[in-house]
C-alpha cells in the first residue's frame, strides 16, 4: 500500500472541494432553470467515499456507478467543463448532451458511466471484469452500489456471478441511509449490508466510515489488491446525502439528522486531519479552494457558451454505422 503523504491528502482535498462546489453550483443552476430535466442527484456529503475509493485504483482499472455520478466522474478525472456541459445538455458535454446528469461517462478515464436503472450497472461491472480476466489482465472494476440497489435482483445475480466466476470486482455499497425516501432498516432484512457477502461466499471487508477519506482509501486499497489477486469483495461505506434523493424529491424534514451528519462532514474531517498533521496548512487549503471555485466558474461559463445539440446529434449513434 502506498504511504499516504501530504500531496495525496491535498489532492483528495482538492477533489472533494471541487465536487462540493460543482454540486452546489448545479443546485443553483437547477433553481435558475439553466440545468433542466426531472432528474439530478447530488453527491454532496458523499465525497469522501467516492474520492477515497477512486484514489485506490490505477488508471487502467475501471469504475462504474449509478445515477448519483457527478462526484465519481470528477474524482476519476473528468474535466468539470464537459461534466457541466452535459448537465446543461450541450453538445460539448461528455455524452454530447444526450445522457444528462445520470449518464456521465468517460471512456478515456475508464469511467464506464452512470446508470439510471437501479442495479442495472451491476452485471455490466461483472462483464467488464470478465474482459480483464479473459484477456489475462489484472485490472479490477470498482462498482459503486446504492444501498437501495442491494434489494433488487440485479444485486443478487451480479454479485453471485462475480463469485462463481471469480471476477475482480470491488463491490462498494454507498450506504447513505435511504433508498429514495425509504430508510435502510425498513427496506433490508439485514441492514448491515456488508454481511450479504456471506451469502455469496465472497470476501466481506466490513463497514468503513464513509466520511473519512483516509479510512475509505485504506480499506478500498486492500480490497483492490484482494480483487486483483483473488476475486470479488464487498464493502459497505456509511455516509449521507445532504440534498435528499434528487431534485424531484418531495422535501422531507430530517434537519436534526442532517445536522448530526454535518458535524462529521467529509471535507471538515479531512481539514481537521490535515491541520493536525501539518503545520501552517490553512493557506494551502485556501489556495486550493480558490482554484477549484475558479474551475467550477470556468466550467459554467464553458457550458453556457456551448451549443445545444442539433438534429444530426438526435439521429446519430442509434447504431454503430461503419
Amino acid at each position, binding site marked *: 500500500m502506498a504511504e499516504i503523504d501530504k500531496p495525496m491528502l491535498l489532492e483528495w482535498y482538492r477533489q472533494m472541494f471541487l465536487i462540493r462546489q460543482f454540486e452546489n453550483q448545479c443546485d443553483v443552476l437547477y433553481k435558475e432553470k439553466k440545468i433542466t430535466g426531472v432528474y439530478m442527484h447530488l453527491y454532496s456529503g458523499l465525497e469522501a467515499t467516492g474520492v477515497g475509493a477512486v484514489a485506490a485504483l490505477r488508471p487502467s482499472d475501471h469504475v462504474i456507478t449509478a445515477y448519483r455520478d457527478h462526484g465519481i466522474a470528477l474524482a476519476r478525472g473528468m474535466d468539470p467543463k464537459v461534466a457541466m456541459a452535459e448537465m446543461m445538455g450541450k453538445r460539448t458535454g461528455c*455524452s454530447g448532451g*444526450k445522457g444528462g446528469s445520470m449518464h456521465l461517462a468517460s471512456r478515456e478515464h475508464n469511467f464506464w*458511466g452512470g446508470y439510471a436503472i437501479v442495479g442495472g450497472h*451491476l*452485471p455490466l461491472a*461483472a462483464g467488464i471484469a470478465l474482459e480483464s480476466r479473459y484477456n489475462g489482465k489484472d485490472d479490477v472494476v470498482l462498482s459503486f452500489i446504492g444501498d437501495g440497489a442491494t434489494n433488487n435482483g440485479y444485486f443478487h445475480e451480479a454479485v453471485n456471478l462475480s463469485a462463481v466466476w471469480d471476477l475482480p470486482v470491488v463491490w462498494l455499497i454507498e450506504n447513505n441511509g435511504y433508498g429514495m425516501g425509504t430508510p435502510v432498516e425498513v427496506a433490508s432484512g439485514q441492514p448491515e449490508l456488508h454481511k450479504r457477502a456471506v451469502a455469496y461466499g465472497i470476501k466481506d471487508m466490513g463497514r468503513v466510515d464513509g466520511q473519512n477519506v483516509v479510512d475509505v482509501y485504506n480499506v478500498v486499497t486492500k480490497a483492490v489488491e484482494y480483487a486483483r489477486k483473488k476475486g470479488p469483495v464487498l464493502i459497505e461505506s456509511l455516509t449521507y446525502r445532504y440534498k435528499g434523493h434528487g431534485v424531484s424529491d418531495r422535501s422531507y424534514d430530517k434537519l436534526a439528522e442532517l445536522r448530526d451528519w454535518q458535524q462529521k462532514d467529509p471535507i471538515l474531517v479531512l481539514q481537521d486531519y490535515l491541520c493536525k498533521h501539518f503545520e501552517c496548512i490553512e493557506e494551502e487549503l485556501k489556495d486550493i479552494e480558490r482554484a477549484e471555485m475558479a474551475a467550477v466558474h470556468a466550467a459554467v461559463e464553458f457550458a453556457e457558451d456551448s451549443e445545444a445539440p442539433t438534429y444530426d446529434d438526435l439521429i446519430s449513434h442509434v447504431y454503430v454505422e461503419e
Partner: protein
Amino acid sequence: MADKNMPMREALRMALREEMIRDERVFVMGEEVGAWQGTHRVTRGFLEEFGEKRVRDTPISEMAIAGAAVGAAMAGLRPVAEIMTINFAFLSLDAIINHAAKIHYMFNGQFRVPMVIRAASGWGDQATATHSHTPEPIFAHFPGLYVGCPATPRDAKGMLKAAIRDDNPVLFTESIALYPKPGLVPEEDDFVLPIGKADIKREGRHVTLVTYARGVEWSLQAAEQLAKEGVECEVVDLRWLRPLDTATVFESFQKTNRCVVVEESLPYYSVGSEIAAQLQEHMFDYMDAPVKRVSAMDVPLPYAREIELMALPNAQKVVDAVREII
C-alpha cells in the same frame, strides 16, 4: 465447397463454431451451454473444443447473463449469450432494452455493445402459457437493437455470422420447431448474409405473403396449394424485424397489390400491424385489397393439444386469408 444438408441446429452450431475459431474475442455464455452441451444442442462439443474460458456455464440468472454480456461487449469482447428460451428473456428485458440497446446512443458513441443474444422461440408443443411466446416484435420496437429470425438452415448460418461480426447488439431468435428441419447450407466459413436484407423465398405475381421464421414454412405450403388454383403468391421472408427491409416488401407489393402477413406471434402491435401500417402509408396507390393478417390467436396458450392447435397459424389459414382478398 458444396452445400451440405443439415438441420438448422447444426447450421447454427457451424456458424458459431466458425466464428469462435475466427475470433478469439467471441465466446458463449448461458445456462447449460457447456457441460450439458446446450439445451438445444447448438453448443454441442464446444466445451471440449474451446474450454471453460470461452464456453461459460452460468447460474439461472437471466438479468445477469444479458447484463454481463453487455459489460463484456463494452469492454471489447464479443459475447454470444444464450437465453435458453425467449420466455426467460422477459427477465432480461431491462439489460437488453435499457442497456444493450441504449448505451451506444446514451453516451454519444463512447461505447459499443457488440453482443448477440440467442434464444429459442416459438410454441405448439403444449409448453403452456408462460413457455409459449414468440415476442420478437416487442424487441423490434426499440431502436438500438437488431432482431434476426431465420427461417432456413442456410439463413441461420449466414445471419448468425453477420450478427456476431456486427458491432451492434443483436437479438437472434431460433424457432424451436425449425431446429430439426433440414436444408442445404454452404460450408464456406465466409458465408455471411447482410443484416436487414429480406429474401424472396418464392416468386409470384398475385399476392405478397410477408412473413419470417416459422411463418415462411406455412406461407410456402399455402403458396404451393394456391398455385394449383392458379393463384401465384410471392413469399417475402423478412429475416430481420430490425432493420426492417421495407424496400423489398414495397417492391413486391407494387407488383401484386395485395398482401397477407403471416406470423407465429400475437396479432396486436405485431409485425402484421407494422407492415399494414407501412403499406397504407407508402403504398396506398398500389393497394387493391385490405392487408390481411394471419397470426396466433389472441389468447394465452393452453396445455391441451386440441385447443392449442386451434390457436396456431397454419397453411390452411394462410390459404383462407389469400382467398378473401383475391
